[in-house]
């Protein structure tokens, strides 16, 4: 398994973000002056490998693990599947004492909470723990699980079909009659990120905005990937989009451009934690350490995520610059929101878009 | 090997095809099963071969009980060493002719070359050696039937069941094979059961004939016995006696027909329960008018090679069938004739036999 010599490894080394200037392994692992692992942990980790279960996008995970390998020299193995299936598997494997993963990463706060309740996650404090604690919504249950980074959700357009003046800049621009029938959205019930978006739109612009958006007769999709594909081909010209995956597609050559609207973008969580198996795995610990290190967080930012660790210098994502997590522009759908408002949000969205299901 | 069948019953779904059949075939004996279409002959054979699960009764071959409904014992077919030529041939369409015939030999672990040689011998016997390598589907009907026969002959079973094995062959081939079969059967002391609708074949092959009616055996005896004294009017009819008349009243040596104002003289006094009189067409003598006997008119006259078949409508009586030697004095249709029936050739019979023949008649 693993990604071996996949094209991802090339991209991870240079294209996305240049490799850190200093990687010092003389006494443990120190990257750009930040200590990631002490000598003993590093030695053990080199003999070990990280087993990562993840519910986030395959391509970004491929890039991440390739970068991790390059920076730390530690082997890592990925099993990826959609969050709901992942959750089913993790809970079942855990229940049967057969959970193989050392680190599990999910995109849904409720799922993470459930993992924590069931003991899938065990408390672990990476070296940067004190830094992390300074931020809101980064450390949960005293380190039982962490926010690795946030996914940003905004909108984008097909750059071959839309140019110059026509390019939408603000959310309100989506209501322009010229987009009627040319918009794409993923329905709000399809997952945490899209529910978050719906909640953001309701909060920031009110129900009225959402019903007007619905009246634009957008094409409604079940999954982001199908929508992205339709956008790339020009089937639709403007769509609400996940930042990271769209950026990936853009880098891969799709005629897409993203917009970072000033009146706000929606954010959702990317959470991870160490499992009981990970407790015994040095490599798993190094992976968490690295992910939450400056180097790891920068790399995430360069991929199109919003870093969770507070107090970092802004890192651009190609030509775009996402707002930091603590800015006004960034609207998070917190776990409490998710628990309390998901159902009602989806319901209002469905009504506005005349969507059943 | 002696085959003993006791009180055998078989039902398909709700339909009883065999109903309490008793039969013993002596070691090395050849029994011919005669019976109407659909009376249960094939079914009986399939039971002996172990292809159907009887709903009652007991079958033993030699000293082994191969089926017993009471104890639930049932020996699988391949251990019974019973050969069978299927009425439907059951030639394997995906094998060549010689492969079909070799199969039973290969199952007996005969080496390939030896099996082939033996198979070719049997094929020569049935006149198919030149088609040995042909696919078994690319044959004419008669040729396929011969493959089926050859296959069972090659097997050398201890009991051989033949279900109309020659029905699609021409008369000469049939005669040759009939002789060949009888030869092999007698030489090897093969116990065999043979179904045929050809009386010639039955008479030539049978040590004894079993008459089957409605799922049971109603008469069992040597060919002469069965031919000379059928046990019932229906058996008589079946044995080719076309002149069977219902009896109204019988007094001494005189019987009155039920439907016609005619009485006939018999050699012996009519027994109680006598219901019919029968006379074989060969025993009816037809002469030109004026001789003794009943007067009548020739209605049908069919040339049959060495003989002529007449139907003569007796004046005020029934129509009588007669087979007379062909010769110069033949009568034409419409001619008047006189018909004579000798009292000794008249059979006085019950309509049906209800009980099976006594088992002490059975040869060892």
């Amino acid at each position, binding site marked *: 398994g693993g990604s071996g010599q996949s094209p991802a490894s090339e991209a991870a080394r240079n294209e996305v973000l240049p490799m850190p200037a200093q990687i010092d392994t003389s006494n443990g692992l120190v990257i750009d002056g930040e200590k990631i692992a002490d000598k003993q942990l590093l030695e053990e980790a080199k003999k070990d490998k990280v087993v990562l279960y993840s519910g986030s996008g395959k391509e970004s995970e491929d890039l991440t693990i390739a970068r991790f390998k390059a920076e730390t020299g530690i082997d890592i193995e990925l*099993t990826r599947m959609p969050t709901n299936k992942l959750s089913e598997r993790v809970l079942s494997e855990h229940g049967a004492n057969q959970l193989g993963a050392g680190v599990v990463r999910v995109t849904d706060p409720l799922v993470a909470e459930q993992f924590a309740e069931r003991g899938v996650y065990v408390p672990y404090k990476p070296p940067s723990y004190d830094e992390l604690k300074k931020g809101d919504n980064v450390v949960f249950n005293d380190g039982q699980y962490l926010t690795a980074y946030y996914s940003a959700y905004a909108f984008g357009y097909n750059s*071959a079909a839309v140019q110059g003046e026509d390019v939408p800049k603000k959310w309100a621009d989506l209501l322009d009659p010229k987009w009627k029938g040319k918009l794409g959205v993923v329905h709000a019930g399809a997952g945490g990120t899209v529910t978050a978006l719906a909640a953001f739109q309701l909060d920031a612009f009110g129900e009225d905005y959402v019903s007007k958006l619905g009246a634009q007769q957008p094409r*409604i999709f079940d999954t982001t990937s199908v929508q992205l594909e*339709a956008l790339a081909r020009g089937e639709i010209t403007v769509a609400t989009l996940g930042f990271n995956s769209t950026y990936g597609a853009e880098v891969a050559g799709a005629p897409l451009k993203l917009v970072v609207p000033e009146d706000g973008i929606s954010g959702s969580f990317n959470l991870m934690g160490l499992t009981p198996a990970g407790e015994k795995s040095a490599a798993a610990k190094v992976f968490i350490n690295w992910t939450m290190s400056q180097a790891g967080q920068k790399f995430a930012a360069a991929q199109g995520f919003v870093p969770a660790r507070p107090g970092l210098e802004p890192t651009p994502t190609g030509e775009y610059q996402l707002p930091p997590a603590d800015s006004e522009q960034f609207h998070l759908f917190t776990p409490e929101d998710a628990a309390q408002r998901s159902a009602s949000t989806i319901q209002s969205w469905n009504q506005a878009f005349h969507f059943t299901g | 090997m002696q085959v003993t069948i006791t009180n055998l019953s078989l039902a398909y779904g709700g339909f009883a095809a065999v109903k309490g059949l008793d039969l013993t075939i002596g070691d090395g004996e050849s029994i011919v099963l005669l019976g109407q279409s659909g009376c249960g002959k094939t079914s009986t054979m399939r039971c002996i071969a172990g292809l159907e699960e009887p709903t009652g009764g007991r079958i033993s071959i030699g000293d082994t009980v191969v089926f017993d409904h009471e104890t*639930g014992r049932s020996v*699988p077919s*391949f251990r019974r060493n019973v050969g069978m030529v299927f009425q439907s041939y059951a030639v*394997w369409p*995906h094998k060549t002719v010689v492969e079909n015939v070799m199969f*039973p030999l290969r199952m007996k672990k005969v080496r390939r070359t030896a099996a082939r040689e033996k198979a070719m011998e049997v094929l020569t016997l049935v006149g198919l050696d030149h088609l040995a390598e042909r696919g078994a589907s690319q044959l004419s009907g008669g040729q396929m039937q011969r493959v089926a026969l050859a296959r069972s002959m090659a097997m050398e079973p201890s009991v051989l069941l033949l279900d109309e094995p020659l029905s699609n062959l021409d008369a000469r081939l049939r005669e040759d094979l009939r002789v060949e079969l009888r030869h092999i059967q007698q030489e090897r002391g093969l116990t065999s059961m043979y179904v045929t609708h050809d009386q010639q074949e039955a008479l030539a092959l049978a040590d004894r004939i079993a008459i089957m009616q409605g799922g049971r055996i109603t008469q069992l005896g040597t060919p002469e016995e069965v031919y000379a004294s059928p046990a019932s009017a229906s058996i008589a009819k079946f044995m080719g006696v076309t002149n069977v008349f219902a009896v109204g009243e019988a007094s001494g040596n005189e019987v009155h027909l039920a439907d016609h104002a005619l009485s006939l003289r018999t050699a012996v006094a009519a027994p109680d329960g006598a219901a019919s009189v029968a006379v074989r067409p060969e025993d009816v003598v037809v002469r030109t008018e004026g001789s003794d006997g009943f007067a009548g008119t020739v209605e049908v006259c069919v040339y049959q090679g060495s003989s002529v078949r007449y139907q003569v409508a007796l004046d005020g009586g029934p129509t009588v069938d007669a087979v007379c030697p062909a010769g110069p004095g033949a009568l034409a249709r419409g001619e008047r004739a006189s018909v004579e029936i000798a009292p000794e050739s008249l059979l006085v019979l019950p309509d049906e036999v209800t009980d099976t023949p006594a088992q002490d008649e059975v040869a060892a």
Partner: protein
Amino acid sequence: MTTVQTRPAAPQEAPLPAPSGRRRRRRPKGLGSLPLLFVVSFLILVPAGFVLLAAFSVDIPRPGSINFDLTLQHLAVFIEPGVLRATVNSLIIGVSATLLALLIGGFLAFATARTNIPMRGFVFLIGLMPLFLPSYVGALAWSQLGSPVAGLLNIGMRDLGIDFTVNIYSMFGVVLVMGMFYAPYAFLLMHSSMSLMNPDLEDAAGVHGGSTWQMLRSVTFPLAMPAILGSALLVFTHIFENFPVSQVLATPGQIDTLPTFIYRLMNASPSRGNEAAVMAVVLVIVVLLVTLGQRRILARRSYTTVSGKGLKARRISLGRWRWPLFAIALVYLLLAIVLPLAALILTAVRTSPYMQSFSDLAVPGAIDFGSFGRVLQSDLFLDSAGNSVIVAVVSAAAGTLLAFLVGYTVYRTKAKARGALEGVSMVPLAIPAIVLGMGLLWTWLVMPVPLYGTLAVLMIAFVAVQMPQGLRGIASSIQSTERDLEDNAVLHGARRSRAVLSITVPLMRVGIASTFLMLLMLSMRELTVPLFLYTSDTHILSITIFDQFENGGALQQAAAMSVIYCLIMFVLSYLPRRLGSGGMNP
């Protein structure tokens, strides 16, 4: 071979004395079917049992938290708004696409098995080929071809100045794509059944005044009824449950279907697995009833065509219809294979997915074949391809064997368990793969054997999931061959097992090869179930490709991979195709 004891037609209602307990024990009959029933039940009923439990328990009964707090509240899912409309849509799609698939499959099967259509080997391949394309890939390819704005067909027509728009995001589109991509099931099943036809039976219709059409209608197709009903059942349930095509083609056209509905249930947060299980249980009941009905219909008649009175292979001469009919087959080839593959290849080599006109392709740098090379060099791809081939071959072989044993027991013996055996074997058909995948996951996690996380567990799961397909494939050929042929071998001294091997199996060669082929292709394509069971060591191709498509950004790569995937399937299908062609001659 288990020691299956065979007896022809059961005299069940016969006036038997009530069998005493002791007597029954002495009977060897049907004993062989018990281990078989055990194996099949173990493979299928344990996972299905979990699904059943999930349907009626308060919590999802996963390992570690299995309890029996039962409830009926999940049934409320049926009154949720939208269920009714989704069900009606699914029914409409299911019925019409099934008819289309039967029509296509039946036509091609008849043409290749029974007529002198030109290039029969090639036409056979045409019937088979859509199997090489997983339905989600086919649907995606068709969305690239036929989407109203940017579909390649529409672009092409615009280029040519034709004012006509194909809209694949419609009921028609969904039915067309589903029908086309499920036709191979019908094709394979009917092909094996029709190549066992006894031409005498057809000829008899001809001489008794039936025209060719009437002959087909009253003899040829009725005799293939086990295959037709069997494939109708398979195709219908598959279409009814198919998610990817609905997702790619129906959702954009705002057509709701039951599978997308179930998908949303599963995808909701928190996941509503119990409710999905309830729907699955209802589907199981429906499918079992249909299976029972089919059994009833078929039981009253006989469909034996291969008899011991010879089988003269004769092909119907199509006369002047030869080439027109061939052209129809070509149209199907074009729609189901050539166009989708062309779209995929175009996607794989095009540097930009956006295209206004075909003239865009002439721009320098617009085309780059590099993606194929990159795919072929990727370890991940090579590993998963290797795993896929191993898993597919083993599970198809095991699945065919098991299906043969079950089919034989059900249709050739009087074993008491045969009704149960058939019913159990059909259960996986009814449970949507996504729910069944969960059941299998739970099962193999709690089993105290260290199989979880190995390729073996994938193989076992595939065997279980594909049991219905295997059984239907085998059953229709078994019903075509006269049992006398096998009995005769037994009479001539062969053990039953030997008779089966040397008579029944060769006679059913075409059917067995088709079944194997079908299972092989299905295993190569199977996606949802392995998603619950694969690990990073046991990556398989279908998942790798699905991941690529899910990525959105990696479309070019995904397309290149799909094309290579099709090629692998094509190569893999060679052997069973060789075995399956040809007639009944020695």
